[in-house]
């Protein structure tokens, strides 16, 4: 497949925006300016980016606890994301949700929630709505390998197949369900083949290769849009940070239990470095351009942190707001 330079630049920039934004949260987490639990997406950027590039603005996505990247890749506003992580009133959820509840309905990001597997059925419903309305939208449900333990995934796969719904089940397999390695939660390491049991087309893809992600996503989106859904895709990836916080299973405790050698192996497969090298090797993006993008993204992230820190706290008197819609 051939890609325009503009498109490649876009992919690169989106991955960089996610990475820089995530990494900019590390110090505020460590020095206590950010208090809510934060699950960093560093290392998995290629998945959100490749899928986001294959979707239209009015397609829907749902995320989980580690969804900053999904939000940004779908076109969510960075200032509002960071302000939400700082639980400020100008955050995307007005300081009521924090890092685990990011949403931007205007770009089709319909929400995220940390109950593992909890949004899979919501995504199923969004796809069902599209099927009832015949509106040609596609929904993507993002979840991790841990969610394969939840019954609702299996119920949802079955129903999606039964009704041929336009939904992509995007499993980001980073091999760890909080502290437990996948070998301790499943007999079969492979997740894509779950689709076979339900008669669902399924793929297993290198989730650290943004072009491979984009290709499989584009093909699956087209298929769903033309009535050939659903699709289950397993993206093999690795989180470079801890389960929650920079390097922890308990934010602030420095308790990452993963072997050092394993982490180093995956660092060498960093999706951004890999893509940058590829762009260099094939002279697709001049070094100057890469430098320029990096600078631009650095400024954007810096300004988002500033925006968040300067935003106001929600007012005490507004605590009852939004329980119900009027």
């Amino acid at each position, binding site marked *: 497949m051939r890609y325009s330079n503009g498109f490649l630049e876009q992919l690169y920039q989106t991955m960089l925006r996610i990475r820089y934004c995530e990494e900019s949260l590390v110090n505020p987490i460590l020095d206590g300016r950010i208090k809510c639990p934060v699950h960093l997406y560093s290392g998995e950027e290629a998945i959100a980016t490749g899928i986001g590039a294959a979707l239209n603005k009015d397609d829907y996505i749902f995320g989980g606890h580690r969804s900053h990247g999904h939000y940004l890749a779908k076109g969510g506003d960075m200032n509002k994301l960071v302000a939400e992580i700082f639980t400020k009133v100008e955050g995307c959820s007005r300081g009521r*949700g924090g890092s685990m509840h990011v949403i931007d309905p205007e770009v089709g990001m319909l*929400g995220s929630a940390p109950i593992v597997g*909890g*949004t899979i*059925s919501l995504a199923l419903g969004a796809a*069902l709505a599209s099927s009832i309305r015949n509106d040609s939208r596609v929904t993507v449900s993002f979840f991790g390998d841990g969610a394969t333990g939840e*019954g609702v995934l299996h*119920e949802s796969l*079955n129903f999606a197949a039964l009704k041929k719904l336009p939904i992509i089940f995007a499993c980001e397999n980073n091999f760890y369900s909080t502290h437990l390695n996948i070998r301790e939660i499943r007999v079969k390491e492979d997740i894509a083949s779950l689709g076979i049991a339900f008669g669902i087309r399924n793929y297993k893809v290198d989730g650290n290769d943004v072009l491979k992600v984009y290709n499989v996503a584009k093909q699956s989106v087209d298929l769903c849009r033309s009535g050939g859904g659903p699709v289950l895709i397993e993206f093999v990836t690795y989180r470079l940070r801890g389960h929650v916080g920079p390097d922890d299973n308990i934010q602030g405790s420095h308790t990452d239990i993963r072997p050092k050698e394993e982490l180093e192996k995956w660092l060498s497969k960093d999706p951004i470095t890999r893509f940058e090298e590829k762009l260099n090797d094939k002279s697709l993006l001049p070094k100057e351009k890469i430098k320029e993008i990096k600078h631009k993204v650095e400024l954007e992230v810096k300004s988002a942190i500033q925006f968040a820190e300067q935003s106001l706290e929600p007012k005490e008197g507004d605590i009852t707001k939004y329980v119900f819609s009027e």
Partner: protein
Amino acid sequence: MFSQNRKLTYSLAINEALHQIMSKDKSVFLIGQGVKSPWYVGNTCMDLLEKFGEKRIIDTPVSENAMTGAAIGASLTGMRAIIVHPRMDFMLYAFDPIINQAANWSYMNGGKLSVPVVIWGIINRGGEQAAQHSQALQALLAHIPGLKVVMPSNAFDAKGLFIAAINDPNPVVFIDDRWLYNTEMVVPEDLFEIEIGKAIIRKNGTDVTLVASSYMVVEALKAVEELKEQNIKAELVDLRTIKPLDEDTILNSVRKTGRIVIIDGGWRSFGVSAEIAAVVSEKGFKYLKTSIKRVTLPDIPAPASNSLEQVYYKKASDIVEAAKSILT
């Protein structure tokens, strides 16, 4: 012309509500186990499939969790979904989407999206169905911030509250008691709403307030008549909505009577009756002439044996006895 006195059974009132709202509003759809089968849902869904087709009347696999989540997810995209659980007991599988997701979605997203879903649960008591086919779980649901809970007691209310629940922009749990399905009354033929959050005085009286909801209103109405024969004037408040609770109507009645018997089809401890007792104690203590009385299920799972069922489910006579115990 339609008759002013057209009568409908409770279940057909729901059926009419569904036909009318689905004709009017294309975003409404019904999903759940057994919507094609009278064995599951009585005649509440009669002719819906024929009229609206399989896209909007969706019978499902036995997957309560995912099906409820799907109804909620569809509602996040502008649909108005109704998810039916023909036995409330099975709805317990769906507590994650109902409680974690639907109830919290608006708040935890700063009001960015609301969830206009109706979660329709049917209580199927009696008939020796035992503990897992007969539970009345209104208190569990009413405990949750972000949910509204309605429990109609007759055909008129069933239609009006069903329409109100569908039109509400928030998640509404609509709870039926199947013992009401064959009760009949005059029901307007047009599309109308009954306001959620408002109770109604069914009988006026000055001696004692009875508060009830759903099927227990039927028993309470009989109790009012029996008490009348004994020269006791009972006032009957039909809650219609469990949450938000219409505290004003209850307190105004207690101000008048000074006595209250709280009747609920659920269990005693930590339930609807306990909540109402707390409200009366906190806000209406000065009106009370005597202690509060409750008529509820005992804290026991539903038994199968008919002889035990006779003791388990409360009747008009239990209400009469409770009222008299605080009058003498």
